[in-house]
């Protein structure tokens, strides 16, 4: 079949004729969806940054009440994680894909974003897990120092419970992040790279 026949048939179709569209309901939905999307993004940021800020304030207050310097360190670690979220989001916001860009520009922007996400998750230990670990280590050290009168066996047991609990929790968080890279982000990156390759 030659292309002109296909094109003629194609251009003779009227897809709009098969559509029942209530434009007022549609407009309402589009506006609603846009608000919902913006609210989702906003609350995600509030959740991540808010949790870090809340914990930072909590540890500060706790540290002040108990006069424990190690809790100040933990508060600072939480603050650092929250600050990292805010700065990273602000920097990345400028590089978001814009849907009215050309396909190539949009794919490149998406690829940049995915690569950044992969970088974040692969390095989650350094910016997300390590700062609290330092704070938690300090809290552990101060706890053990305070409880030194209980004897070496109690101190070892306490230390072991602390380390195992945090070790398992942190290990799980790290594993979840690496799994997200393998299962979701890497395939998406490969897909985008293939798309880009098909354009160039």
């Amino acid at each position, binding site marked *: *079949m*030659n*292309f002109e*026949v*296909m*094109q*003629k*048939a*194609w*251009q*003779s*179709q*009227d*897809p*709009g004729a*098969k*559509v*029942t*569209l*209530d*434009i007022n*309901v*549609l*407009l*309402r*939905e*589009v*506006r*609603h*969806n*846009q608000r*919902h*999307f913006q609210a*989702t993004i906003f609350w995600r940021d509030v959740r991540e940054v808010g949790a870090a800020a809340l914990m930072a304030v909590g540890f500060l207050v706790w540290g002040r009440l108990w006069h424990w310097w190690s809790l100040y360190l933990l508060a600072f670690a939480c603050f650092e994680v929250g600050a990292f979220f805010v700065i990273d989001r602000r920097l990345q916001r400028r590089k978001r*894909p*814009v*849907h*009215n*860009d*050309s*396909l*190539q*520009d*949009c*794919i490149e922007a*998406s690829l940049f974003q995915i690569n950044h996400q992969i970088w974040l998750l692969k390095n989650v230990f350094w910016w997300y897990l390590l700062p609290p670990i330092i704070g938690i280590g300090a809290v552990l050290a101060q706890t053990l120092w305070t409880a030194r009168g209980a004897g070496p066996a109690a101190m070892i047991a306490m230390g072991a419970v602390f380390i195992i609990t945090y070790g398992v929790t942190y290990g799980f968080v790290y594993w979840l992040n690496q799994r997200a890279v393998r299962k979701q982000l890497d395939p998406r990156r490969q897909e985008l790279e*293939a*798309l880009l390759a*098909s*354009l*160039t």
Partner: protein
Amino acid sequence: MQTQAMTAQEQETLFRRWLKEHLGLMLKVVRGCATAPQDQDDLFQDILLQIWSSIPSFRGEAKETTWIYRVAFNTALAWQRGERRRREKHEIFLRLDTPPQVQLSHVDSLPEQEIVERLYAAIRQLPKVDASLALMHLDGLSYQEMAEVLGISVNYIGVKLNRIRKQLADELKGAADEL
């Protein structure tokens, strides 16, 4: 050409006009990229949402069709079938997919309709970028317009279209024999 920030009323007016004038274009992209009615409805809403959001940055420098194609294809590329729906439950404002054989009232129109349906099926088999090109080519866009939508050179468009035309012809060869 618009130089000032667009008011909400202007945004709505332009959106309504685009829907009226370019609905066919949007639906072709939807049908070329998604098969199941639920997926088509989902993708169509995503495209409308992106078009609505893009309107304030429309300055009239690009042709309206070029702009809409860009938004629609970029949305279709980012859209993934089966991904958890981002949106809340929504009101149904669109009925898209009625089997073509039910719609046909004249036997004379069957061959062309059949070709169109097979073209959609063939386009959905193509890699995404090729599918985008096929849709625009069938709609009669110039090489220059296609290059603007995709952001690649006119020469490369020519090379790709030769291959796509052949692929579509091969896919529809069976259809032609049956017809």
